[in-house]
């Protein structure tokens, strides 16, 4: 498949996944802020979405106050914020438009109508519709897109690069979500805890739709160690790091070319460490340090994918002539 097409499919998928994750993160912050009556503590909750998405700096450049209204607008609707849900929907649709000859018309229609609706969304409509209802809508559009994709697209390279984008983005997002809350996951004397901890921990689980899975897997109270284990090391949780990296590794092996060895190797190393890792060791190394390493690795992997597939350096002239001869 064309390198440019592959790149656009990959980014289309990343933007859809990003929009969904941002909706989850914001939804959790919103729910958490409702749990407390203290306005100062309420605003505290709104730092998390900015920290997770790494946008505290650009945000504070334009807003003096971190509060619900401002953060919601910035992360959901702001056309100036490149990672707002608004811009994710726009970018996903723009990329899809550039490759609409490659994706199925059903996939295109989902992204196109999502963007049309998104354009009609402003602050008044957001509050009229209900903040949570809006996040539900974003998630539903993402679910719909995923379902339509799986239900309609041929299992070819287009499908693989779409999945690759999805899992690279999701691994990155899950790692950031855990990292933003790492301090509350650290074992401490108050380990088995008060109500606030319970809500904090369950919020992390809910933000990656893993609350019910936790109950099913452990049938026990929520502890930070198990949360980390579930979201990092379990291979059967679709938003865990292990799950995502398993698929990234498999996809890279399926689409490999002559210059993708380093990308596959990097993914393999990360995948192996997740497959054989133990949660005790992660906590021994330091959860934050572990996640920082992980994010650095996925960043490197992202660059390698770009070099190997999306902006390939052309082989020397002789090699190309051979290609010409064998395909002529």
């Amino acid at each position, binding site marked *: *498949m*064309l*390198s*440019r*097409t*592959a790149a656009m499919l990959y980014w289309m998928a990343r933007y859809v996944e990003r929009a969904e994750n941002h909706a989850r993160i914001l939804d959790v912050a919103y729910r958490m802020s409702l749990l407390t009556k203290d306005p100062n503590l309420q605003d505290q909750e709104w730092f998390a979405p900015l920290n997770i998405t790494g946008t505290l700096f650009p945000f504070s450049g334009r807003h003096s106050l971190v509060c619900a209204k401002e953060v919601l607008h910035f992360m959901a609707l702001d056309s100036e914020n490149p990672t707002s849900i608004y811009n994710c929907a726009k970018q996903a649709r*723009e990329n899809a*438009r*550039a*490759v*609409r*000859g*490659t994706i199925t*018309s059903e996939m*295109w*229609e989902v992204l*196109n*109508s999502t963007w*049309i609706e998104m354009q009609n969304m402003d602050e008044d409509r957001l509050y009229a519709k209900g903040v949570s209802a809006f996040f539900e809508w974003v998630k539903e559009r993402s679910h719909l897109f995923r379902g339509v994709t799986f239900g309609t697209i041929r299992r070819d*390279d287009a499908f693989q*690069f779409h999945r690759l984008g999805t899992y690279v983005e999701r691994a990155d997002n899950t790692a950031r979500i855990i990292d933003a809350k790492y301090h509350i996951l650290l074992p401490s004397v108050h380990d088995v805890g008060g109500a606030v901890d319970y809500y904090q921990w369950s919020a992390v689980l809910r933000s990656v739709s893993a609350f019910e899975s936790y109950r099913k897997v452990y049938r026990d109270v929520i502890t930070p160690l198990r949360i980390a284990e579930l979201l990092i090391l379990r291979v059967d949780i679709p938003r865990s790091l292990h799950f995502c990296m398993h698929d990234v590794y498999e996809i890279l092996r399926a*689409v490999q*070319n*002559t210059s993708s060895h380093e990308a596959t190797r990097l993914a393999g190393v990360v995948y192996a460490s997740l497959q054989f890792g133990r949660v005790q060791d992660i906590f021994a190394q330091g959860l934050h340090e572990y996640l920082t390493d992980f994010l650095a690795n996925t960043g490197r992997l992202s660059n390698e994918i770009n070099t190997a*597939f999306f902006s*390939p350096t*052309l*082989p020397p*002239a002789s090699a*190309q*002539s051979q*290609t*010409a001869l064998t*395909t*002529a």
Partner: protein
Amino acid sequence: MALKPFFNEMYDTAGAVRPHYAAFADWLKNTPPEKIAQNRQAADLMFHRVGITFAVYGEATGAERLIPFDLVPHVIPGDQWEMVSRGLKQRVAALNAFLHDVYHEMEILKAGKIPADKVLENSQFRKEMVGIDVPGGIYAHVAGIDLVKDADGEYYVLEDNLRTPSGVSYLLENRKMMMRLFPELFAQQRIRPVDHYPDLLLETLRNAAPPGVDNPAIVLMTPGHFNSAYFEHAFLAQQMGIELVEGIDLFVQDNTVFMKTTQGPQKVDVIYRRIDDDFIDPLSFRPDSMLGVPGLMKAYRAGRVALANAVGSGIADDKSVYPYVPEMIRFYLGEEPVLKNVHTYMLGNKADLDYVIANMKDLVIKEAQGSGGYGMLVGPTSTREEREKYKQRVLDQPERFIAQPTLSLSAVPTFVDNGLAPRHIDLRPYVLSGKTVNFVPGGLTRVALREGSLVVNSSQGGGVKDTWIVD
């Protein structure tokens, strides 16, 4: 001024429904207005959702607009279409013969049937193509022939489009929409199908491959997603299952064209290009073109890659060459033209110029090299001021202009703000030339939505209708 009488496609002069419109007229009579309004809304919504849009030049970059779609079809009786078919095949065969001739022996010029300077000094004549043999001798693989019907009910060819004619995606989407909205009408009568166009096009492109290439790799080359016809490019590539490429996806090495893929470079044999000659290769044509592929012309001239349409096809659809098409048909085929030409005044001729300047109010004046309805003057609907301004442009460089009598253009009832009213139309069939000449019955019907307007181009507020050939 009073409008000239025109041919109404649906009603005869006594106001009775013409037989080939009977089924639709019945539906119209028996359908409550709310249901019709509902159908119109449904059509709008669906087109929007599917994203069938075009970009309008001169508006903000990337602005996308929906092309207005009208529910009342343009219906043509089968026997009338047979005549048109014969005329299209004949005309396109002659145009291709002409293109081969002017880039080789130039017999028609030697015979004095067309003044040599009209061809040789035309910027659309590509010297790079002289003596080059293209596969099968076909230049215009895809031709859009614009037809209109005058008050006398006869078809005339308004112009030929042999460079990168667009609009066929609307033809296909319009039909899909009508079948969704009016299944009962399609069940009642035999309306000839059009959905196989992408198959015919693919077959035509396969036939265009350089000799000796068995299973050609075909791509569709687009200027990119800001181009007004991008939707169509993506649509056709998808329908044919071929790659949609931009210039940056291709490169040339050892006279061979490759595309950059995730599995390394892959050879390309046929390029269905929807990008003008001027932009395809910065080394041969416009050096500032960011859209093209350096070295493409050299590979093309070496016969290593085929282009559809061929470089240099524009010389045959130039408006200053158009008046000679009937002569081409006689010269190459020894036949009389089936489809008439509109009488054309060449303003480079003193006598024609004098006549046109004296009669601007009754004529349509166009730039010989313009397209898309830009830069034309429609005499009868123009103001005195517009005519004066245009006159200056004409007098500055008369040879750049042509003029034609204002045809009245037939009309089809069309939904407008206050109900149904006749609006003028034209018809563009898409003629494919490969080993044989093929097309789907009918074509794209374009409609001028403003009352009395004769300009049907989508860039000028035109809309589209489905075209039915009924038996």
